[in-house]
């Protein structure tokens, strides 16, 4: 006899959905911002020094997110 009492972790499903969308949008936005900072303004094609620094900061944040991804992936870092 088959008994079906399906136990679905809806909370985990919701968390996965939200985290995936937020992280993807965040990284895409940071990348887009970096490109905007690296692009020139007005007549000048070369970005100013300030814009360059801001662009590199955006790329740096993406780099930190990548490192966090590696941290999550490698169990040695977060499992005693």
């Amino acid at each position: 006899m088959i008994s079906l009492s399906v136990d679905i972790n809806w909370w985990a499903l919701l968390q996965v959905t939200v985290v995936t969308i937020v992280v993807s949008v965040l990284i895409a936005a940071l990348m887009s911002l970096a490109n905007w900072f690296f692009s020139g303004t007005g007549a000048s094609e070369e970005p100013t020094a300030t814009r360059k620094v801001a662009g590199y900061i955006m790329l740096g944040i993406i780099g930190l997110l990548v490192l966090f991804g590696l941290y999550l992936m490698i169990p040695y870092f977060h499992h005693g």
Partner: protein
Amino acid sequence: MPPEVIVPIVIVVALIFDFTNGFHDSANAMATSVATGAFKPKVAVLLAAIMNLIGAFLSTEVAKTISSGIVNDSLVSPETVFAALVGAIIWNLLTWLFGLPSSSSHAIFGALIGAVLVQAGLSGVHFDVIISKILLPALVAPIVAGLASYLGTKIAYHGDHNAPKGAKKRYRMAQRVSSLLVALAHGTSDGQKTMGIITLVLVAATLTLDENNPGAHPFWAQAPGTAPHWWVILVAGVAIALGTYSGGWRIMRTMGKGMADIESPQGFAAETASMASILASSHLGFALSTTHVVSGAVMGTGLARTPGEVRWGTAGRMLVAWLLTLPASALVGALATWLAYHWGATGFIIDLVILVVFAIAVKIIASRNHVSSENVNESSEVKVLAKAALAHETSPIRNPFAPPLPQKLAGHPMATTPLRLTKLKKPKKKHRREPLPPAPDSASWSDGAVRQRQASKGPKHD
């Protein structure tokens, strides 16, 4: 069958499954990078193989059971695992032949379900777990990844600042990083899967050995709950890396070119969404299939930029493959188990022969429309039975001696067609008939020429 015999057989078959898992899933990480040119095809699979190998060594948290509660664990024996592996390999090869990305995990779960159904009937299978751990995630994964990828692509294509050459270069670099991360994540999860299978078989065989011959401890003996042997980690890692390096170009073509034409920002958005969903799902307790995630992400990015150019036919075929994975591999697993249980050693040998014959047949059929690193991006279709009518799309044949074509003709289809080979060949000599002797006048024709012609034909036999 004694453990000394069955253990090596199951280990070899498990490693073959690991290899098929590698080439089946190499597209997950690298298809978009190969399609957009972020990596050259051979470099892409080499890096993916290295990342898979590293990933296999990163974690020792091997699953204690390969079944994840889908079947009654106490029913899983080396024979069951063997039958499940046969079923999963056959399904992996078949879907590879058609270039369809389907989940290797679902294939082995399906085959395991089939094997246990034959062994113990319906009571051995936990259908509620199948719904919550296989069917629902299969439905959710492409939707979540697709939505994330869609939004990411919309942002990447918003405004003019993402169009310049420098921006595209940065997107390409970011895409490379995200692809490598997906490959690493794949190594940690799927490399572990085969280690778990082999460990389970070793534990089961050791228990059987202890019952029959207490005190005997071969080098492969393993106690329940212990970490895998170092050599198991090594061979499983190497097998999945070799499989990944071999390419799986048919699936890579479907994923990279078959669903939608993608550019670097799209590849970046798709890989980022895939990476985010894989990491989130594995850490929040709702495991999603890498294949389903990446496929959904590619569809999402295609819909965001060029919704009219998404190839729904390919997506439909892929969906059918996903739906069929569980029942089809269950059927093969059930058949393999039936043979192994009812026919004993003979059934085992029949299973192995079926596997080898099937693999050879698939290889022969695939070679008719060969897809390789050289032509993976030349077409969006993976032909199976149809003859390569458009030979330039699928044939790897290139004439190495052909003179270079003018630049304006380089993109012409004839430039790569094997027909060019014929141009270099010497024309065959036509058989030349001896010219008839001249017939200047009627007398010589009637006498000398006719006699000469008759003589050349040989004597007359009345």
